[in-house]
């Protein structure tokens, strides 16, 4: 039972989503599906990051108003790690940017060859 806590479970979910994402990215021929795979992969990574910042039984790293009124306060004993959360914000936005770019590519690739099969875009090889 030692391992059944939120941290372990979400870490496991994160890893499994990453693996599923890789599975999708590597097996699907359709470019949109590949991008979907990446999106799942990214979600998995994000879950991973957040769960690594999780501290058992602690609250969000926000000094709520009630406490705040009394001035600065050392909350290190009561909050989860804020750093991974900050990182994951960045990661999500980056992931969005990349996804948008990939989709733009997908659109233009489709326009060029009227297909979304990735193995048709092998003009450059060897």
């Amino acid at each position, binding site marked *: 039972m030692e391992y059944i806590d939120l941290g372990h479970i979400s870490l496991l979910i994160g890893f499994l989503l990453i693996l599923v994402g890789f599975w999708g*990215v590597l097996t699907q021929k359709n470019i949109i599906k590949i991008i979907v795979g990446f999106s799942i992969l990214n979600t998995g990574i994000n879950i991973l990051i957040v769960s690594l910042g999780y501290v058992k039984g602690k609250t969000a790293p926000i000094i709520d108003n009630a406490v705040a009124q009394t001035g600065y306060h050392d909350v290190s004993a009561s909050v989860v790690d804020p750093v991974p959360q900050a990182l994951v914000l960045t990661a999500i936005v980056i992931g969005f940017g990349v996804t948008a*770019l990939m989709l733009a590519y997908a659109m233009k690739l489709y326009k*060029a060859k009227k297909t979304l099969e*990735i193995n048709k*875009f092998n*003009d450059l090889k*060897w």
Partner: protein
Amino acid sequence: MVTPIFIVATALGAGFAIGVLNKFGKNFTGGLVLAAITFMTFISYQWFSAFQFGDQTPEYVYTAGFMPPLSINLLMGHYEAFVTLLINFAGLLGGIYMFNSLKNRGSNAQVVYLIMLMGLNVMVMTRDIFNLFVFMEVSSIAIAGLILLEKGTRSMGAGFKYILATSIISGFLLIGIIFAYYFTGTLNLDGMIDANLSGIKGGAVAVFMIMIAIILELKPFPANGWGLDLYEGSNAGFSAVVSAASATASFFVLSKVMDIAGPEWYYYISLIGAVTFVGSNLLGIKQENTRRMLGYSSIGQLGLLMLILGFRDILGDQTPYIVFGILISHYMAKAGLFWISGIVKSKGLKGWAVIRKKPFFLFLMGTFIFALIGFPPFPSFFAKWTLVMELVKTGNMAWVVAILFGSMMEAVYLFRWFGYAIKGENEHLEDFKIEIHKIVPVWMVAIGLYVMGYFTAQFTEVGAEINFIPLAFVGLLLALDFLPVFVKNTIAIAGMLAYSYFIYPDLEGDTLRLIFEGIFMLGGILALIAGYAYKGTRAGFYPVAILMYAGLTGIIEAKTTLEFFYGWELMTAGSYFLIIRGKRSMPHGLSYMLFSIGGAYALLAGLGIAHVGQDSFAMDIINNIQYIPYWAYGLLIAGFLTKTAAVGLHIWLPGAHGEAESDVSPMVSAILLKAGVFGVVLALIGMGAENNQYTELAYALGWLGAITAFVGNLMAIFQEDAKRLLAYSSIGQLGYIVFGLAMMTHLGWLAGFSYVINHFLYKAVLFLTIGAVVMRVGTHNMYEMGGLIKRMPLAFVAVMIGIIALSGVPPLSGFTGKWLFYNAVLEKGWYLQGALFSFSGILAFMYLWRLIHTVFLGQLKDNHRNVKEISIWFLIPIYTLIAGLMVYAAKPEWILQPLGNMIAQFFPDGQLIWDGGTAISKYGQWSGSLIGMTIGATFMTVLIWLMLSTRKAHKVKQFDITYSGERPERPETTHVAYNAFEGLYKAMWVATIPLVETFWDRVTNILHDTAGFTRRLYSGNGQAYMLHIVFFILITYLVIIGG
């Protein structure tokens, strides 16, 4: 000092502001972008110069007013300043080059370009690993966008594959980073180093993921299909920036991050680097597409840099120097080549012949290619030298082999390409346009390469001793290339005379060097005199000829092994250019270059081994090699033998010499080959005569020499091409020399040296004469000549004297060598080799007779009835040389006695005794002058008698012969020339089977097949590329972290 944060602020400020400023037009925004890059370059330069020339200490830039590890900090140190300078400078030049392409895509593209550079800068400077991730994403997204500067499906496919690949990579990087944070509680690089991440339980996997992601950014073989597509698919100007700026930044990131990985990773970095270097260069040989080929080369160079990085603990203080040399050469040369490829606009290699329509492009292209391969005076030469020296010293021979093999492969495809550019058919190709903003960056990097080369040399103590004066003279001739031949020829001759005059005092007393310097310089001057026969400007001839002589004299003057190798490579470069000037000499030039480079690498390895355990680089370290001396001498000699064209390494020579221009053939045959001999002499002196422990090596060399003599002479018999015949003859003659030297006795060396001088004299005469004849009659084929004695008697006399001397028939000088040889053979006891040598000599009669008969005797062809005597400018050197031959024949003691004294330094036993003009050996005696007089007197007596009795001899017409009762009407039918030695061929065809060619063909085929098979990996499918990446990661994981 402007703080480096302004690099970021400038780029972002300008980039964001362009959103509202774009109503001023694209020229304005483009100018703004360039101005921003210029300012960024200025910032980096300011820091760099403060580090380089001042005593600036590395400075941390803290953001947010907090100290790391709380906040993100940037570091501006010496290397950071240099690398950002490189990035921004490449960005600036690239920005100028791509000004129009960016403009056509609008202000958005201009902004993206600017931000990409900013991202690269931050990647270099940041000390925070997550920040690194963010800005790596910035730059890779920007790159993925800028690929689209080139329109069409190809570039779109490439861009998409690039995004897919970088997404996978950054995914792994992110997982690695977050685990690294989890285990260390910090994101700061320095903090992670302090925390010893890879030592923490579980930290190794985090390190693995970070490292593998950063290594994958460098496009390691074979997980690099996407990288190749990027180079091939994008705009040429942009490929240049990727190759120069982006790859440099990624490389620096690796060097920065590997600190957290710790030393146990270094080996694997080197291993991946080596695999990449060898693998991508091997695949490069199959490439027909220029950009892709350059992509392979870029990736290979990065692999080499990775390899070096992995050795940084072993290389110690030398690491920055080596990295600098290789990086800067790759940076400038590759950018230059990509830029040229954008101007020339030819996809296939063969289309590059069009470059000749603007000849100065050849200079640029040559500069870049030679810099990439590592020829002097470019930085990579010095870096590669130092690298090999250090690696050998630390006992890493296997790595040296990998490096040299990879470099060799790179040379294969680059020179093949260069060959197409120089010699390919370009009639039907459409000329290309030059835009000024595109050519300026190319010129800047080209000139930069030379400047950098000079400075690289100055960095080291041993490099600073190199004499750059001859090279400066080459530069002068290059600048004066527009002048007519006679002016340049005079300048060249005057320069060589002056140089010889000034160099003479240094060499006085050193007979050995004096002999070779004499052959190189005086021979060079004589051969140059023939140049007056040419009309026009003869573009490009003088710089390369002088380049060769500069190299030759460099070899002689070399006080250090570096100088020697420097001279050797200059000579190789010069002679390569000389050789490929011939009309059909392209394939031969290539094989010459490849054998030369292979030889040079053997030499490099040999010199490296010689350096082991000795603190100096002085030339005499090869006299006392301590570490695996057998290998060292073997490699050295093998290297030198590529130049003497010993059998097995000779296949380049016949074509190269045969197809060269008329006055080039004597240069490369009579003169150049002696450089190899000089090398062999040095190596043998190194092996030492006393208590020689290398008898097996010498024995093998002896057989090699004898077989070379036999093969060369035999093959010469069956040639139809006069110059090829002489070329094969040179192979044979060099075989004699090697054979003589290999005996390692006084007489053997005397024989060898007498051949050195003799071969120089008569081969120069023969090649000059035949070359001049070829110029007159316009064909090399002997069966198309005939009867030319009537038209050019002086040439005939020259050839006759030449062949009598060469065949060794008394009384001319060739007999000297033969006599010495037999005595040496008897003394040494190498009877069978001696017999083979002797047989080769007899075979020589056949080709010599054929040479003179089918060209000068027999039936004069109708179309040659009006040819003139060969040019006076050829006759002058020819008859000067003949005078030398005659002096040698009449007074051999004048030459042999000093030679004997010189050789006695090394081999005091078994000297000849001179009784006046009579040489007395243990076995017999011979008196050159007396024999000459006796034969002369007899000849004159008989001649006078004949003249007295045939006073009324009347001259008859050409066809006044009876021929089976018919009278021939056409000369061709009665000229016995084609396949003249059919009988001998039927008896000896077995010995003419081209085993060596077949062997090398097989080697080439195996390499090509391997490359062709392996590159099928790059199926063009982006998904497969992702799979490669994942495979690469997992396999590396299993290898490094283990099961």
